C-alpha cells in the first residue's frame, strides 16, 4: 500500500512541478524589463523551487520502484483495479468537491447565511450518521445564524446578502 502511495505521490509531484516549471512560470511570472540594481528577477526563486520539487518527485518515483516490485510478488494492484475497488469512496470525494464548488459559486447568488445553512445540512447528510437527527436539523439552522449575528455585531463584517434576493 505505502509503496503504491509513494509512487503516486512522486508521479503527482513530478507532473505538478513540471507544469509549474514549463507552463505556469513562463506565462504567469513576468520578468520586468527593468530591475533596480542587481536584484535577482522575480522568476528566479519559483524556478529554483520548481526544479527541486521536480527532482524530488522523480526521486520519489525511482525510490518507490524497488519497493513496489518487492510488494508485487505478493499482490499485484493496478491503478484501474484500485479505482474500481474504491468506487464508493471516489464518488463521495467527488460529492465533497461538488458541495464546495456549489458553495463558492452559489454564495454570492443566494447569500452567505443561506449558503452556509445548505452546506452544513448537506455535510451532515453526507456523514451518513443519522442518530442525532434533531441536533442536525437544529444546528443546521441555528448555528450559521448565531455565527452571522456574532460576526456582524462584534466585527461588523459585511456578509454578502445574495443577488437573488436583493
Amino acid at each position: 500500500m505505502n509503496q503504491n502511495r509513494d509512487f503516486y505521490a512522486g508521479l503527482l509531484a513530478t507532473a505538478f512541478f513540471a507544469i509549474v516549471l514549463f507552463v505556469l512560470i513562463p506565462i504567469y511570472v513576468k520578468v520586468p524589463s527593468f530591475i533596480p540594481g542587481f536584484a535577482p528577477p522575480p522568476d528566479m526563486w519559483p524556478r529554483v523551487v520548481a526544479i527541486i520539487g521536480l527532482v524530488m518527485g522523480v526521486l520519489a518515483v525511482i525510490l518507490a520502484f524497488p519497493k513496489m516490485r518487492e510488494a508485487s510478488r505478493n499482490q499485484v494492484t493496478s491503478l484501474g483495479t484500485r479505482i474500481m475497488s474504491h468506487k464508493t469512496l471516489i464518488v463521495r470525494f467527488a460529492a465533497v468537491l461538488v458541495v464546495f464548488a456549489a458553495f463558492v459559486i452559489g454564495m454570492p447568488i443566494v447569500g452567505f447565511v443561506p449558503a452556509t445553512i445548505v452546506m452544513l445540512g448537506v455535510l451532515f447528510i453526507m456523514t451518513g450518521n443519522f442518530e442525532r437527527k434533531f441536533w442536525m436539523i437544529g444546528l443546521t439552522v441555528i448555528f450559521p445564524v448565531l455565527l452571522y449575528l456574532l460576526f456582524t455585531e462584534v466585527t461588523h463584517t459585511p456578509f454578502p446578502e445574495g443577488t437573488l434576493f436583493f
Partner: protein
Amino acid sequence: MWNELLYAFEAVATLPNFLAMFAGIWGGVIIGAIPGMTGTMAVTLALPFTFYLPPVTSILLLVALYKGSTYGGSISAILIKTPGTASAACTVLDGYPLARAGKGGKALNMALVSSCIGDFISNISLFFLAMPLAMFALRVGPPEFFMLMAFSLTIVASISGRSLVLGIISACLGLLLATVGEDIYGSYRFALSEDMKSGLGMVPVLIGLFALPELIKMVVFRPEENNAALKLGDNRLTLSEFRGSIKSICRGSLIGVILGAIPGIGPSTAAFFSYSEARRTSKNGDKFGEGELEGVAASESANNGACGATMIPLMALGVPGDVITGVMLGAFMIHGLTPGPLLFQNNIGEVYALFIGILFSSVFLFIAGKVTANAFTKISRIPQTLLLPCILILCVYGIYSIGASPFDVTVLLVMGVVGFIMMLLNIPAAPFLIAFILGPMFEDNMRRSLAISRGDLGVFFQSWISWGFFVLTVLFVTLTIRREWKKWREKRAAATASAS
C-alpha cells in the same frame, strides 16, 4: 531606580489595571481558540476602546489580548486539530495525537504551564535585556536573516516523518504557494486572477490544510468509530512529566525571547525552531509527532516566549516586531508615548509600570487558561459527525470576517482538498506549513541581500552571525544526509537478508 519601581508598582496595582489585564487575557484566550480569529484581530478590535482608558491601562489591555490569543490558539490546536492562530500550528503536531490518545487534558495543562513559563521568562527578559537585545537585533540585516531562515528551513528534515523526499516535496509546494502574489519589487507571480495579486492568506491556507482534511476524511471513509469523541482521560500533569520537559521549556522560552526580539520573525517561527531543537536533542525525539508532551511544551513555551520579546524592539527602538506590535505602536502614539530610546528618558515611570504590569499578566494567563481550557474541553465530548461540519462553518465565517473576501473562503476549501490528497498520499503537511511561513522571509532577504551586494554572494558571509547560522545549517544537513544514508543501508541489508 528602586523608588521609581515602587512608584510604578503602586501605579499598576489598581483595580482598573487588573480588570483590563484579566479581560484582555480571557478575551484573548477565547478569540485565539476560535479558528480564523487572530490575535491581530483581537488587538485591532480593542484599539478603539483604549481611547477611553489611561495609557498604561490601555497598553496592558492590548498586551494581555496578544498573550491570551497566543495561548488560546493551542486549545483548538490540541482538541480539534485546528490551530486557532498561526503560532499554534506547531502545537497540532503532538497536541492532537495526545488528545486522540485520551490525554487532551494533559496536553492542555502542559501547553498552559509551558506558555506561562515562556511568558514569564519573556517578561523578565523584557525587563532586563530590552536594550542589549535591541542592540543585537539592530545588527541583524538581510544577509543574517537569510542565513537564519536557511537554518530554520532545515527543520523540514526533522518534521518530514517517514519519508524525507516526500517532506521536501511538501516543503517545495509550500514555498511555491508562498510566492503567489506581488513580490518585493512589485512584480506579480502566479496571479491567475485579480484576487491572487495580493497572495494567499496565511490563515486560510493554514486552517484549510489542518482542519478540513479531517472532515473530508470522515465524509469519504465514514469510519465506524466516528462517535468516538476525544476523551480527556488523565488530565493531571505529573511532576515527572513536567521535569521531563523542563529543558525544552527553558530552551523554547529562550528561543522565543531571542527570535521574538528580532523584528519580522515572531512567535510562529520561534515555535517551529524550538520544536525542531527539542526533537533533535530529546531522548524521545523519534516519538515527536506521535503525541509527545515535550513537543507541546517546546512549541508553546517558544510562541509565548516570543510575545513579550516582540515588545523589546518596539519599546527600545520603536520598531514593531510583528503585525500586532505594529498595532500597539499606534496605541502608544495615540496616548502620546513615542516608542524608542526617548521613551526611556521621557516616560520612564510608564515604562516601569508597563514592565511590572506585563509581569502580572503571566499570573492572569495561568488563571484564565485554567478556566477557559476547562470550558473548551467540553468540545471534545461532542460527536465528530456533529462537530466537524460545524467547525467547517465556523472556519468559513472566521476566514470571511478577516478580509470580507470570498476568495479567502475559496482558498480555505481548496487547501482542505489539497490537504486531504496529501493525507491520502502520505505527504506530511507540517513541512508545507513551515515552508509557507518562512518562504517569503527567506526569499525577500535573499533578494535584498543580493541587491545590496550587486549580486556578490560574499554578502552572506560578512558577519559572525551569518557564519554561525551557516555552520549550523551545513552541520545539520550533513547529519540528516548521514542519518538517511544509514537508514537506507539498513533497509537494503534487511531486504537482502529476507530475499536470501
